[in-house]
């Protein structure tokens, strides 16, 4: 067993940290207040290669491993959750699914421009009336000759109004005995006729990010844009979540570290009753819990990333990592506010933003309750993961880094 990160890992983290400290952190409070995404964020993430970090070089990516993806997400969310969200949808929920399930033609048309950052990608699963109950979705894609006709609406979609591509899950078989088997996944170009998009405002958190909706009215999706096979939509969606949740869990780990660092700094600066508040044991206790949460969350996502590298099925481990880290990030942010006292309540300090930002991830990509059910089901023997027709490819340094 070796816990050492490689020099590559460390330098990649350093580079992303440099970017966030220079180009994100100085102004993030203002963008959060304005409830807008800073216009330079996506182009810079693209230009720097972050949007293709763990995609093989031959598909336009940077050829790093899955652990680097986790480390990058941790570093991005340390600065602001909105940046990690970009990775969750563009990389975790979309690009990695194309890598896993896509045909060579789909990889060339979708994955390559996405990994290069020329096109942004999002993920359309949740609907106004269907969240955790995926099979309850009402969007339909009906085959007509060489294409499908897509109708329906997707809600709470990150990057809805910014993305060029979306992975959309819709019902292709209205009569399937098990509604799960009636779903299929599609790669949809969002400039297609009949697609409308919009932003949702008034969110509690991730205010400097883009969250919105996608509406499809008689959108013609070419048959060759079907991802996987007809009826595989639910399985594909769940495999997407294995990757999306990995980015969410590793990102939330960064949020815990941000709360910890802010609390340590404040506890060393602020004085009460003639000494630094860090000298008080109840403040120390809060900080100790943050340290504990951070280390645990990091170990959990690292294990999940290691399993991805090895090509091992990691649904169970990733669910645990996501559940633990997001809950712990909410607690850490709340305690960080407590350490800051009244100042923590003000948006002059970052910690109130951390709290607002942490809450979304406790809900999306499987609520904490869903993950509790999953973990209990695994433990009780009610649930096992069968093999998939297409597994996420194990990380192979040579293959990943070769030009072709």
């Amino acid at each position, binding site marked *: 067993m070796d816990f050492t990160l490689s020099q*590559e890992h460390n*330098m990649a983290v350093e*580079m992303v940290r440099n970017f966030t400290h220079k180009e994100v952190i100085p102004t993030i409070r203002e963008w959060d207040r304005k409830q807008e995404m800073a216009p330079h964020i996506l182009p810079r993430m693209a230009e*720097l290669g972050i949007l293709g970090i763990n995609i093989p070089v031959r598909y336009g990516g940077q050829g790093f491993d899955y652990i680097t993806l986790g480390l990058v997400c941790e570093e991005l969310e340390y600065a602001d959750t909105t940046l990690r969200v970009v990775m969750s949808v563009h990389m975790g929920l979309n690009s990695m699914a194309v890598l896993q399930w896509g045909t060579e033609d789909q990889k060339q048309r979708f994955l390559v421009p996405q990994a290069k950052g020329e096109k942004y990608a999002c993920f359309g699963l949740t609907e106004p009336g269907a969240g955790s109950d995926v099979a309850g979705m009402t969007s339909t894609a009906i085959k007509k000759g060489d294409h499908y006709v897509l109708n329906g609406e997707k809600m709470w979609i990150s990057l809805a109004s910014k993305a060029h591509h979306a992975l959309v899950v819709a019902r292709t078989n209205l009569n399937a005995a098990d509604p799960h088997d009636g779903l299929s996944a599609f790669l949809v170009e969002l400039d297609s006729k009949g697609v409308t998009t919009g932003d949702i405002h008034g969110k509690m958190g991730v205010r400097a990010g883009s969250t919105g909706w996608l509406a499809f009215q008689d959108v013609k999706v070419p048959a060759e844009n079907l991802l996987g096979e007809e009826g595989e939509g639910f399985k594909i969606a769940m495999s997407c979540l294995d990757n999306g949740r990995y980015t969410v869990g590793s990102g939330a780990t960064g949020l815990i570290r941000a709360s910890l660092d802010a609390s340590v700094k404040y506890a060393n600066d602020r004085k009460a009753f003639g000494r630094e508040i860090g000298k008080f044991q109840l403040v120390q206790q809060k900080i100790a819990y943050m340290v504990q949460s951070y280390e645990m969350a990091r170990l959990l996502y690292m294990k999940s990333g290691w399993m991805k590298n090895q090509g091992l099925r990691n649904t169970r481990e990733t669910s645990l990592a996501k559940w633990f880290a997001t809950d712990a990030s909410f607690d850490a942010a709340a305690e960080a506010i407590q350490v800051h006292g009244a100042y923590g309540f003000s948006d002059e300090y970052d910690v109130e933003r951390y709290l607002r930002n942490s809450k979304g991830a406790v809900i999306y990509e499987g609520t904490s309750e869903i993950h509790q059910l999953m973990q209990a089901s695994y433990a009780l023997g009610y649930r096992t993961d069968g093999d998939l027709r297409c597994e996420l490819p194990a990380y192979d340094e040579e293959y990943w880094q070769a030009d072709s």
Partner: protein
Amino acid sequence: MKIVVCVKQVPDTAAKVVVDGGVVSWGDAPLVINPWDEYAVEAALQLAEKSGGTVTAISLGGEAAKEALKHALAMGCNDAVLVNDPALADIDTQGAARVLAAAIQKTGDARIAVFGKQAIDGDSGVTAAQTARALGWPALTLAASVSLDGDTLKVERAMEEGRQKAEAPLPAVLSIVKDFGEPRYPSFMGIRKAAKAEIPAWSLADLGVAAPAAAVTWKEILNPPARQVTNEMITGASPDEIAAKLADKIMEEKVL
């Protein structure tokens, strides 16, 4: 055309640096490439891109200085050399300049040597000029902008009174200031290359120079005396009232 850029490994600017038992300590703060040297690397890379040249990064230091060189490689330098010799432990700036001059010459055909404005540990700010002198090359220091016109380097130098326009024929030494423009981040491709790079180390014997005797020695290193500030907060009902009170205090200090 070959361009050399000299970089140094230093404690991060945010480090809390203290003397502990006569030894300088920066706690667990990371060692980083000297921030001024990142501008130098940027300038070297831009010159190489425009002239179709290559950039070699050189650092004088211990094994840890390889990290600074790896940063330079990750930014895009073509290769890197560490100059490492136990005899360099107590070297002063003129000694460093002579050793760097020998290393620059050993690279073979370097036409430009680029430096940062100063290193943020020793804060001397003389190494570029001294290396130029040791090489017998003209020095264009504190360059805020650089262009290459054939075999002539043209710069605008940031001096206290304004920008001096100056030029010199190659080979020449440059030092770069922040006005030059933000240095690029390492690229992921560069990071991969840097992580795998084997960095050769040259000893004084390899350079064919004797260990320079230090003319300048550090006799003692101290924590600065704590700043004795009696802090007085000025309050008042209105900005005008506060301003009037503050003005009284400023006048009393007799600093105007």
